[in-house]
């Protein structure tokens, strides 16, 4: 009998009734992880997981996460467990400290099963650039369509029901977009709400730690456990720790939701548009006010280049510590420069190097005004405009992707098209303004799921979950996983 296609809430009931034990769950998860055909794992921590799971005897009634197995993206620091960021430059790096989110989940007695693949250093959106190669979409036996990234392994393992939840990180859409290809709930919080201490930085002003679950309620439970001020994270929020379960089931009556017409216009896929329109009808039927409004197209077109310039600039600096001296494989050389040069030349893949050069170039004194600072200004304009929208509306609602099946080879060629610039990249709005942002499945296209996204005002993470819960109830895509769909 399989347990791991169940939600956290369902598993907690079984654990309480002692129908199942943490050890049994851990064993099943490890078995599945070992057989994983999707290349979702960097490391499986069998010994530690079994040891810890066997130490858990009495289920804590008020701790819904007690004994629940999970996996974690491999750019989140785990003490004494290899953490590679799916990059050769960290292929042997064993951290000496736990990320704050890991510490919190340990406190809650969650059982870490393994570390999952990502696009190298989280810099990518395809799930194809990690040092272990492509991570596949569990919904696609032909292995031609992407699961998306950069949190590809964390998404694939929840979609394949290896575990009921996983940790990821999101700098542009790295949780919320793969969530769509994997038919999962994917969430990133208000910037500062979940500590980033221990997250390998890509672009700190845009980085968030978040998670994948298979239900909205599971997400709210996790947020309750992971939120909170952390003095080790200088951007951590104080005094914003409401109970996210409290208003979860309060419905959407009177909630003001808007949809950007320009985003809808940038999508041609009929299945996606139909499902999205149907979900709008559902929201309206539950009493929400949903309006289609216009948002300046020039600002939407600016999202992707703005994101590229800012994130690459920050990334080139954040990753300057990877030099082979203190940790990571060391290159040969007769001078320290040669050692660093050989370590870095060998350690980074081509894509990463190109992004670093772009970032570095954008920061040169004579280029900053026209590139880095201009991108930061564009970010400001976009955030100002979105904040204006939030004066009238509680939630911005949008499809996550332009189509459910995105081929790994031969994607969108025209990098100046609306489909590319807007439909495929608008979720970065959530990172620009640090807004709470939640993706959840709204439909299936011939066996491939896809999500829509709810983004709210900063600090209003609870409301985003509340709306998500109401929407989930009307759609019937709760607790989607490959096992259920294929069966």
């Amino acid at each position, binding site marked *: 009998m399989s347990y791991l296609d169940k939600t956290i809430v369902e598993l907690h009931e079984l654990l309480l009734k002692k129908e199942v034990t943490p050890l049994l769950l851990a064993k099943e998860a490890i078995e599945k992880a070992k057989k994983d055909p999707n290349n979702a794992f960097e490391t499986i921590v069998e010994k530690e997981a079994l040891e810890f799971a066997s130490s858990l005897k009495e289920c804590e009634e008020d701790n819904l996460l007690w004994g629940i197995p999970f996996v974690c993206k491999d750019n989140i620091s785990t003490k004494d467990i290899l953490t590679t960021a799916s990059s050769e430059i960290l292929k042997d790096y064993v951290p000496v400290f736990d990320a704050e989110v890991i510490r919190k989940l340990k406190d809650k007695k969650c059982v870490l099963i393994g570390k999952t693949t990502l696009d190298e250093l989280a810099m990518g959106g395809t799930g194809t650039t990690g040092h272990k190669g492509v991570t596949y979409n569990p919904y696609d036996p032909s292995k031609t369509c992407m699961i998306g990234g950069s949190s590809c392994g964390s998404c694939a393992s929840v979609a394949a029901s290896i575990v009921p939840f996983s940790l990821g990180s999101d700098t542009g859409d790295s949780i919320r977009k793969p969530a769509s290809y994997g038919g999962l709930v994917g969430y990133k919080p208000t910037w500062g709400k979940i500590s980033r201490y221990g997250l390998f930085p890509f672009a700190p002003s845009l980085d968030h730690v978040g998670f994948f679950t298979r239900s909205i309620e599971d997400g709210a439970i996790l947020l309750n456990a992971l939120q909170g001020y952390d003095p080790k994270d200088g951007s951590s929020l104080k005094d914003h720790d409401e109970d996210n379960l409290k208003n979860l089931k309060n419905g959407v009556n009177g909630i003001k939701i808007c949809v950007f017409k320009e985003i809808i216009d940038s999508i041609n896929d009929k299945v996606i548009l139909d499902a999205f329109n149907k979900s709008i009808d559902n929201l309206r039927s539950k009493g929400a006010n949903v309006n289609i409004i216009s948002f300046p197209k020039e600002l939407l077109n600016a999202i992707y280049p703005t994101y590229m310039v800012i994130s690459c600039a920050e990334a080139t600096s954040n990753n300057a510590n990877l030099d082979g001296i203190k940790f990571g494989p060391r290159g040969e050389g007769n001078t320290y420069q040669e050692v660093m040069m050989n370590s870095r030349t060998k350690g980074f893949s081509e894509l990463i190097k190109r992004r670093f050069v*772009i970032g570095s170039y954008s920061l040169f004194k004579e280029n900053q005004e026209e*590139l880095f*600072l201009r991108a930061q200004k*564009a970010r400001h304009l976009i955030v100002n405009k979105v904040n204006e929208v939030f004066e009238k509306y509680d939630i911005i609602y949008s499809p996550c992707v332009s189509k459910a099946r995105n081929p790994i080879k031969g994607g969108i060629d025209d990098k100046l098209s609306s489909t590319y610039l807007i439909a495929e990249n608008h979720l970065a709005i959530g990172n620009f303004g640090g807004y709470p942002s939640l993706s959840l499945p709204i439909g299936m296209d011939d066996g491939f799921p896809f999500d829509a996204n709810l983004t709210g005002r*900063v600090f209003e993470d609870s409301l985003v979950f509340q709306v998500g819960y109401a929407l989930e109830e009307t759609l019937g895509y709760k607790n989607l996983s490959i096992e259920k769909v294929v069966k």
Partner: protein
Amino acid sequence: MKEVTLELLKQCANNLLFDMDQEQYQTLLEEFATLFKQMELIGKIEDIDSVTPLTFPYPCQSYLREDIEGETLTLEETLKNAKEVEDNQIKLPKVVL
């Protein structure tokens, strides 16, 4: 702005202490062309210079840390990831001043 040439890109990469092969620089050159086109669109946004550069997503603040000695790593923890160690220190080829 500095004109982007293959030589400049190589120099940029070497400043970041890595190298790429010729083909990769060529790809990068093309990537820059696309980025410049996209950035041009941003330059054309009417009120782009009416705002300040934004670093933090929303008005937020950090707090000062009390000046108290905290825990330190053990020598083993500090050095276990380093490849060359001598006398409890990380060893490098001689750094010429």
